[in-house]
């Protein structure tokens, strides 16, 4: 037992305040560094190449981290309090997924974790989030686009969650226990994100002329990066072949079918905007990003990088 400092108060309502100096174990988020994978079986399944598993987990983790960051930018800016709360919730769910997936990547292959100055207490998932350069991020470009209006947020969450949910539904049977567990939890979260966005999609499509115009414009703006979500990168192909990952191409049909249902309910046609090209054929999964990602990271990583030995 560590030494306890107690303050007491006779008024029961005031116990809210008086617990402050009590070193108990009932903190909302724990008082010390916790291993996010504590208690989960992290052994690498037989026949699976650990670096390939790590590379795959990094892709899924980066998608969640970058998307979470963009959605978190809505906090205190949403059209109504209920939506502020809902968007914060979506950002929190994705952040939770990111933390587990980055931790999984680091555990499978420590060499993916950047070197930090000696004495840095940053856990590996933080080293991955805060000390990698943009070209080391493996997220799809869709996740990193700078935010637009609420129609943009609606379409963005809808497309992303339809795609990720289709992926996670299959990932639940991953041979990797961690990925299977993340997917099992994530499916419930993503189903909520999708339903939230789908409701707004229909509302905006059928609301006013302005809302419909904005919604269609947002769909056109995001559509060029939709096909990239179903490209199969060599890492994904290898993960799928090893039974730990999902080939994005294999979920295209299911995702498109879900999207078509929402579009039909909203009476909005599919966009005709053409697919966006990469750079010399390379896109997000190859570490080739658009301009917004490095700006996002400059902001996101600023405090962590200014204090590489800091305790947070």
């Amino acid at each position, binding site marked *: 037992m560590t030494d306890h400092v107690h303050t007491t108060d006779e008024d029961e309502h005031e116990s809210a305040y008086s*617990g402050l100096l009590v070193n108990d174990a009932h903190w909302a988020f724990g008082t010390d560094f916790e291993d996010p994978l504590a208690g989960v079986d992290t052994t690498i399944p037989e026949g699976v190449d650990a670096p390939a598993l790590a590379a795959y987990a990094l892709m899924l983790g980066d998608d969640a981290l970058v998307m979470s960051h963009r959605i978190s930018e809505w906090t205190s800016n*949403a059209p*109504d309090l209920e939506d502020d*709360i809902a968007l914060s919730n979506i950002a*929190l769910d994705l*952040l939770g997924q990111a933390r587990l997936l980055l931790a999984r990547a680091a555990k499978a292959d420590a060499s993916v974790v950047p070197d930090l100055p000696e004495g840095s207490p940053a856990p590996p998932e933080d080293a991955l989030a805060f000390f990698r350069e943009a070209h080391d991020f493996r997220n799809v470009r869709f996740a990193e686009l700078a935010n637009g209006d609420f129609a943009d947020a609606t379409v963005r969450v809808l497309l992303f969650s339809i795609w990720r949910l289709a992926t996670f539904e299959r990932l639940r049977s991953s041979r990797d226990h961690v990925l299977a567990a993340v997917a099992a939890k994530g499916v419930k979260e993503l189903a909520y994100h999708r339903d939230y966005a789908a409701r707004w999609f229909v509302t905006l499509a059928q609301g006013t002329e302005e*809302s419909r115009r904005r919604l269609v414009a947002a769909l056109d703006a995001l559509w060029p990066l939709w096909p990239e979500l179903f490209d199969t990168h060599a890492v994904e192909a290898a993960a799928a072949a090893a039974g730990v990952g999902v080939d994005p191409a294999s979920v295209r049909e299911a995702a498109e079918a879900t999207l078509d249902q929402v579009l039909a309910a909203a009476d909005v046609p599919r966009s005709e905007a053409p697919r966006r090209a990469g750079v010399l054929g390379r896109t997000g999964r190859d570490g080739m990003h658009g301009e917004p990602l490095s700006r996002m990271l400059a902001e996101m990583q600023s*405090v*962590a990088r200014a204090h590489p030995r800091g305790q*947070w």
Partner: protein
Amino acid sequence: MTLTETARGPAPDAELERHFEATIARNDRIEPRDWMPEGYRKTLVRQIAQHAHSEIIGMQPEGNWITRAPSLRRKAILLAKVQDEAGHGLYLYSAAETLGVSRLELTELLLAGRQKYSSIFNYPTLSYADVGTIGWLVDGAAICNQVPLCRTSYGPYGRAMIRVCKEESFHQRQGYELLATMMRGTDEQRAMVQESVDRFWWPALMMFGPPDADSPNTAQSMAWGIKRNTNDELRQKFVDMSVPQAEALGVTFPDPELRWNEERGHHDFGQPDWEEFMEGVKGNGPCNAQRMAHRRRAHEDGAWVREAATAYAAKQRKATA
């Protein structure tokens, strides 16, 4: 809306007034359908709205650091905290709605500058330590102010406050825990914590409002059981509670007059700069313009969305009618 009519009640009647006074005297709750004096209703609307607005404006200074939180864990904690504040705003606006005013009306009064929010949020957040200091001192001061309100005479407000206070105590603990963690870190981090505490100590003391002698509304609010303690009583309580916490943390407060007074059994302490406080109240604080512009922009940017939701709901009603 019958609720509103009931809440406003018929013309003051001696019998109703006596019944109201007796309820207050018994320390019982006044409920939305009970008759209440118009002054009581107005005071409550003003106070609950100000409290709700404070939660919503209060999302900004901390929200300022969400995208720069230095660890994934801290980012989750901060996002969840700011989200809770939106939730508190929601319950408080709902409590105000039981008195016959809508959330939209109150928001418009805020944006027109006709209702206030806590001046503390007109101070800027300048380092990540401020997230911790706001949790510890600002939420701590808020808890001192709000805990007695759990026993306030108006039922919906008191019940909302019980829930708000429980969550605020978590917020305060996360703030203190962040600062304690930073104090175990590097010298730069310790300096960052001390600098932040130096900047927020006096504004935190201002959160209890002007000294009792200059607080015109206190007496009536106490007589009605809306307010349970005077500003100075609560300020003293806050100082007395904070001093041992600062010692445990290893920081000092920037007040040369702060010392234990054996005779009184309390700490003596200096007065904050009440002129600076008044500047904030008048709208001239360091971030008043920024906070209001942010809220106005979010509200205006969301107008087409709210219109769309209303139009869609109307179409749905028509379709099912």
